[in-house]
């Protein structure tokens, strides 16, 4: 794979250029972003890379797949904290 530190992409969620290094750790529990496959599959063999660098459990966690909408995410955060 190409040197990860030189890989840069504009993150459509943030609205700015970030390096692959950020994508590798910005998901929950410092794991890769849940969209890491979507964003980098065009650039290099990201699936192979993740398989090689993550444990089986971590890889599964990144691939895990409940589809919550933004509003649902907000409600979840609200219900956790509403006093």
């Amino acid at each position, binding site marked *: 794979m190409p040197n990860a530190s*030189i890989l*840069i*992409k*504009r*993150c*459509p*969620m*943030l*609205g*700015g*250029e*970030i390096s692959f290094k*950020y994508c590798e*750790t*910005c*998901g*929950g*529990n*410092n794991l890769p*972003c*849940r*969209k890491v*496959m*979507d*964003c980098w*599959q*065009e*650039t*290099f*063999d990201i*699936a*192979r890379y993740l*398989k090689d660098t993550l444990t*089986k*459990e*971590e890889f*599964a*966690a*990144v*691939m*895990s*797949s*409940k*589809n*919550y*909408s*933004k*509003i*649902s*995410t*907000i*409600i*979840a*955060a*609200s*219900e*956790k*904290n*509403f*006093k």
Partner: protein
Amino acid sequence: MEVKKILLSDDEIPRQWYNILSDIKMNPPLGPDGKPISAEQLAPVFPMNLIEQELSDKRWIDIPDEVLEVLKIWRATPLIRATGLEKALDTPARIYYKYEGASPPGSHKANTAVAQAYYNKEFGIKKLTTETGAGQWGSALSFACAHFGLECKVYMVKVSFEQKPYRKSMMGVWGGKCIPSPSSYTKAGREVLEKFPDSQGSLGIAISEAVEEAVSDTTGKTRYSLGSVLNHVMLHQTIIGLEAKKQMDKIGEYPDVIIGCAGGGSNFAGISFPFVLDKINGKDIDIYPVEPLACPTMTRAEFSYDHGDIAGYTPLLPMHSLGHTFMPAPIHAGGLRYHGMSPIVSQLIVEGLITPKAVNQLDSYEAGILCAKTEGIIPAPETNNALAYVVAEARKAREEGKEKVILFSWSGHGLIDLGSYDKYFEGKIIDCKPEDEELKRYSEILKNYPKPEIIKDYR
């Protein structure tokens, strides 16, 4: 003399927003418990008057005078004919754009920021919290809060906070307080920092922090504000398309093609929804939301679905319940919801009223630079996605010898994003297309993972 720009006087600015929910059917959004979200669940987060708008199916909603007073600072935005670009492309197409970069914070986001600040103020709210990625939305909300005397606190994802110091300065001038997230202000932020002191943050964490601060204010005077995705945000943006309609009418034009870049969908909604109404009523228009090919949400199935990675609250799920199958084909499955995209925009795709397109990064920057040279304005990098598709359509018109009328939204200027252009010029932004071989390899790797359970809101 050829017309370059079409203006509207203050008293010609539309007085009502268009609510597309009166013309399309949607299932109610589902909450974390899988049940339709109720107004009561939304009440700690948003003021009731905005919740009513969120759920309203009234076709036309009055724009309050107080909102119009502030919008008038820069609205109506000009409708500009891209004569320079037309010449450069030698196209028979007539290309028009709404210039939303004219707003004080520099993008269309101010349209909803002003409306949201007003409704919160009306409801007795004193402080708004929000999250921002690279700062566009945080700047817009700070600007709006200043006009209505509200306090504004913005959690900005740390990686961007460090990259874009001018965004914090902008917010600061308008009185907004911009905090790098994760922060020690909230439980969610502290938990992340404890576990990962070097965390560069994420949008998920920033949302958690902003929502937490809003709902844990025991005085009930703080609410949270979101700059895209929600129905009321789409509603507030329709002023763009409604103005465009009046402006085109003035010169006897009507668009054949409408184009807008789409992240959460609000800019696209703004320029297109009033024309989607015409399409529903029989007009023949091609309407295209455009996204980056690199991280698509509309044009290709996602590997993984929104995990709601709220500050690590999401448990690592056991193996047997997860996994994916690589789906290289574009999504056509009715009702699949796209992460981070407005449910209304998703629904319009499903109904075939609009057709999503994806463009690659390099084409986008190239188009943006061509437009900067020919039209003068340096576009926001998001706008470049739309521009790449405008250029493609204009070239197609030349090949077909068709005099098409193209309308698009120039959602923002790029003067605070010049670093992105530097990276492009330095050759740091790269694009590669996957080879079939490569795609096959992904499928191999992912073959043994069970199919994901897709929770659908909209069927």
